[in-house]
């Protein structure tokens, strides 16, 4: 898929996710190499008021979304892919006041399952906040609501 249309598809997909809209998440980059989303820092995301550290739940939301949307980069056509499992290793806390980037890619696509890997960082991708692996189910294009949703993503009326 051409990167610009992948980018547009990713933006439409993200705009349909209410909770991600609440967190003001945006698509930073989408290409064959994977998906990168931005989670703007907000005081509402703080989990530890003593340190100002962002709660793991906000990072999990960023990374579940990023890993799930990375499937868009590896599939010829849109498929509904719910999360089967997710594991997050926290390297260090996110610094208050700085946007958080989530990057993920698919490292194996099988008939039924997609394996993804990713990480979140602030200034430096070499100093990740967390490392993530996630497995997603392929429900195929026949899944309930899948075709109509795919139509909407392609810019049609569904």
């Amino acid at each position, binding site marked *: 898929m051409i990167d610009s249309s992948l980018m547009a598809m990713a933006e439409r997909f993200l705009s*349909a*996710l*209410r*909770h*991600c809209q*609440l967190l003001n998440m945006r698509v930073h980059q989408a290409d064959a190499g994977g998906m990168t989303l931005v989670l703007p820092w907000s*005081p*509402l*995301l*703080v*989990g*530890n*008021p*003593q340190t100002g550290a*962002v*709660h*793991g*739940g*906000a990072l*999990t*939301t*960023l*990374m*579940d*979304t990023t890993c*799930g949307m990375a499937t868009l980069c590896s599939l010829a056509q849109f498929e*509904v892919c*719910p*999360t*089967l*499992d*997710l*594991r*997050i*290793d*926290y390297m260090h806390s996110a610094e208050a006041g700085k946007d958080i980037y989530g990057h993920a890619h698919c490292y194996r696509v099988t008939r039924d399952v997609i394996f993804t890997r990713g990480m979140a960082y602030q200034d430096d991708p070499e100093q990740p906040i967390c490392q993530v692996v996630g497995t997603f189910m392929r429900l195929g294009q026949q899944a*309930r*609501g*899948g075709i109509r*949703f795919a139509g909407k993503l392609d810019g049609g009326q569904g």
Partner: protein
Amino acid sequence: MIPADVRQRLNQAHAVGDYAPLLALIPYAGLIGIECERQGEQLLFRLPASADNVGNPLLPAIHGGVIAGFMELSAALYLLVYSESASIPKIIDFSIDYLRAGYVRDTYANCQLWRQGRRVTNVAISAWQDDRNLPIAMARAHFKIEPEKPLK
């Protein structure tokens, strides 16, 4: 270290079984809308149904990240109450298996402390909606805690 006033608020919350003043200190708790109540010696966590937490517009269903965040926060609060850690428990790693779709309904979670070491604890978290025996997700987490007495 947990500041004295927070520790006092924590003890008071646990004594009367009203955790709202404690949750009010945590912005992310308010963002997703988590609630907590005491059930005997257990803590029951509740995430009231909210359109703001939707992450799958097709079903619709709660965002998997919100379910995970709800469960991670439940585990941290559970440890804050039961582990007697001298500091706020710090997440090390978190692993979640999604078993069923989490529809836009009230979601519940409870925690089990499998192992409390001096520095690290292992907690299992189970989340369900209508039927406790049909969990929508199971998770486990390691948290770093601070022993009350310094390690030798």
